[in-house]
């Protein structure tokens, strides 16, 4: 089986992307702390909403994107798509840990417990994280690189489809004890909605930047390996 690899376009666009992210993140933070109003019920604590919810949305999108990239890999047999899928899922895992930690802090602050089973979003998220935690063990337990890419892609597709299915099942099973402040941003006051939107964009940019850095690093390493092999180094 021959697997084509596309010629590396290494590091292109990395600098503008980094600059935009470096500008956007402080703007989002300034808006969160100085522009968005203090929420009446939860007070200052509610500010974690602008960190937690964008993190969660980007994580879930990253998992689904990982699945879509895996579909492209299986259709085209171009291993560079598998690399993209791997990077998207890897970065989502890191963002996901951040989501669980911030969610836990928020739950402790507003409901008094570090973990709340009656909050379906939190529970679904934990199940999804437990599933994706097996992605790397599965991947790196397969020796043959071609098979590794193929099996990882199959996992990414199944798990990507599992994300919405799992949310549906867990949402059905809980009895809505807590009012859903994070259901939709449409009922937010305009100032909060604007801040939230900017935070979401900044977080998406951060995700994209970190992904491109990882991709570039991985491609550079592969390039170096190939070069040193052609030059006869060990």
């Amino acid at each position, binding site marked *: 089986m021959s697997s084509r690899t596309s010629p590396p376009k290494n590091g292109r666009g990395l600098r503008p992307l980094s600059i935009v992210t470096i500008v956007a993140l402080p703007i989002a933070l300034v808006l969160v702390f100085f522009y968005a109003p203090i929420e009446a019920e939860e007070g200052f604590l509610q500010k974690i909403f602008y960190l937690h919810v964008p993190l969660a949305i980007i994580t879930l999108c990253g998992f689904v994107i990982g699945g879509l990239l895996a579909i492209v890999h299986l259709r085209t047999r171009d291993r560079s798509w598998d690399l993209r899928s791997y990077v998207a899922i890897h970065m989502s895992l890191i963002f996901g840990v951040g989501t669980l930690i911030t969610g836990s802090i928020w739950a402790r602050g507003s409901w008094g417990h570090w973990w709340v089973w009656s909050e379906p979003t939190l529970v679904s998220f934990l199940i999804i994280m437990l599933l994706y935690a*097996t992605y790397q063990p*599965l991947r790196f337990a397969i020796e043959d690189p071609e098979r590794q890419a193929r099996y990882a892609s199959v996992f990414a597709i199944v798990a990507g489809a599992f994300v919405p299915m799992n949310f549906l099942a*867990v949402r059905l099973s809980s009895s809505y004890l807590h009012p859903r402040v994070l259901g939709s941003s449409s009922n937010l006051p305009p100032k909060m909605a604007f801040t939230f939107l900017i935070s979401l964009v900044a977080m998406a940019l951060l995700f994209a930047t970190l992904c491109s850095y990882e991709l570039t690093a991985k491609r550079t390493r592969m390039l170096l390996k190939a070069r040193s092999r052609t030059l006869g180094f060990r």
Partner: protein
Amino acid sequence: MRKPPGLWATVGALLRKELLVELRTLESVPGMSLFAVTTFVVFHFALNQNTVSGDEAAGILWVTLLFAAMLGVNRLFVADQDQGGFDAFLLAPVDRTAMLLAKALALFAYLAVLELVAVPAFGLLLLGPPLHQSMPDLLVVLVLADIGIAAIGTLVAALAVQTRARDLLGPLLALPLLVPVVIGAARASSPLLVFTHPAGSQVRWLATLALYDLVFGLIAYAVFDFLLED
């Protein structure tokens, strides 16, 4: 030249081989059934209760069935991997989907036999309310959950069997994927396992299970071919 056999003829042949191998070696089903009965005994001592009902009963039943199913999932492809069954299958001019269908049907049959032993044993050992009055409803839940477990179990078994740590990865992959099945099955069976006037299962749980079966059945069908190329 002879025409290659159709899909269902292949599935029939493969399923016959699976069941024949299982009948002659008795590697999976007796182990799964024994595991389930032992687990009920463990639950009796761990919970320090003689009888259970309602949510608790549904939870014990489904945790036990799920973990017993994991034993079967772990062994599902081991013989094919170790003894060249995959290579022989790939040499044959047949549709590769046949392997998925045959294995899933075989796993479904294993689960059915497991439940034939485990559910009466549960009624005898742990369950407080009588089992017979809610049996028809419980049967629907069991069938719907088994389809989901068979689809995901076959897919996960095929994924895990090629890895170094296959015994570990199988359950690690399958358990989170099967959480929706446990939610649906446990919630659907808990109103059946009560003393007074067992109500029927709520339709939404049966619908959740059916939707899960449909979605992951289709996904398994779509991606399974990619696990069998070499």
